[in-house]
């Protein structure tokens, strides 16, 4: 089992209905009515996308139904991979990313624009096709330029990676968010993503500075997947400073299945494998 950032869940939670005030008496169409229309179109588009995605996932599941990968011959594996690649060409994410973008552009100035650009970004970031990269970059640029004060930008920290964007652009985007967003959660999310990036490339100094700032400044800032960003940073800092290859393993005392107490250091003199696991 792998811990997976709940992108789809988070994205769908963000897109609740936006209440709009309506003047009591109007004889001509108002911008408010137009905003409602865009909201309806967004909902309809989301619904169509969900249907298409369900269908696509169904086909993927069917392809791999009952397959025991380790029991396949090399030829069978190659055939299955080929069919899987073919199937992925029909992934609706790409086509819908474009539709969400089209709506976002038309809906400029309304709440739907933000939602639609976020959806464009989500789908373009997840997609396999190369042409989605341009769409993703455009969505990022527009969101930063026109929606910098949106709380939804907290998702950037989960959705974007340095490998996909290129390290320079990634650092630029996250820095802009952590410095310019008015929302604590957006600042924290961007800072944490930046810290994780520096850890990955081995810049312990930059990572440490960011994590320490998160621990103090964001001790109470709630994080998407429970707890606070400060707590997440504490854990990440401990790992960075004590659990890297070449470091003496920090001692830990625990109870085993018989109720007996033991410590890691009890095993000095032996080669030890520590295996964090669950049967589920």
């Amino acid at each position: 089992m792998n811990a997976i950032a709940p992108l789809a869940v988070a994205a769908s939670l963000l897109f609740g209905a936006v209440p709009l005030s309506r003047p009591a008496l109007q004889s001509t169409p108002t911008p408010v009515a137009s905003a409602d229309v865009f909201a309806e179109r967004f909902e309809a588009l989301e619904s169509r996308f969900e249907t298409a995605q369900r269908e696509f996932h169904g086909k993927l599941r069917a392809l791999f139904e009952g397959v025991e990968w380790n029991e396949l011959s090399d030829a069978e594996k190659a055939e299955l991979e080929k069919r899987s690649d073919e199937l992925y060409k029909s992934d609706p994410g790409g086509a819908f990313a474009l539709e969400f973008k089209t709506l976002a552009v038309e809906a400029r100035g309304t709440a739907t624009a933000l939602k639609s650009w976020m959806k464009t970004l989500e789908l373009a970031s997840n997609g396999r096709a190369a042409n989605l990269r341009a769409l993703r970059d455009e969505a990022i640029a527009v969101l930063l330029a026109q929606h910098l004060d949106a709380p939804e930008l907290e998702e950037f920290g989960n959705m974007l990676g340095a490998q996909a964007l290129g390290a320079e652009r990634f650092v630029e985007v996250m820095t802009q968010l952590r410095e310019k967003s008015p929302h604590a959660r957006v600042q924290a999310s961007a800072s944490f993503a930046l810290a994780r990036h520096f850890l990955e490339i081995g810049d312990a100094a930059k990572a440490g500075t960011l994590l320490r700032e998160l621990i103090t400044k964001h001790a109470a800032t709630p994080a998407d997947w429970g707890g606070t960003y400060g707590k997440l940073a504490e854990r990440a800092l401990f790992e960075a400073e004590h659990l890297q290859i070449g470091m003496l393993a920090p001692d830990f005392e625990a109870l085993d299945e018989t109720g007996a107490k033991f410590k890691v250091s009890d095993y000095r003199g032996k080669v030890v494998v520590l295996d964090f696991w669950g049967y589920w």
Partner: protein
Amino acid sequence: MLPHEKALVERLKDKPFALIGINSDGDAAAVKKILADQGITWRNAIDGSTEGPWASQWNVQGWPTIYVLDAKGVIRYRDVRDEEMEQAVLTLLGEIDAK
């Protein structure tokens, strides 16, 4: 994973080696049942859940997460499984013999 680990434990039973599980399935009673059902003979720490004290402090984000320590207690490998894990352990055992 499990078949490889069982084979490794059996093969190295007379060597200075220990495989220790840190389990997140629940309390001791629940875990004892799992260990018995799965034929797991080695020691397991009862960490209680995926947010248990050990997994939390060590920032465990995915399961399984593996650390391999040498005889001095130094972390030498992370997240190695099956053949890689076996190789890592044998290499570190070799360091003991080489002294």
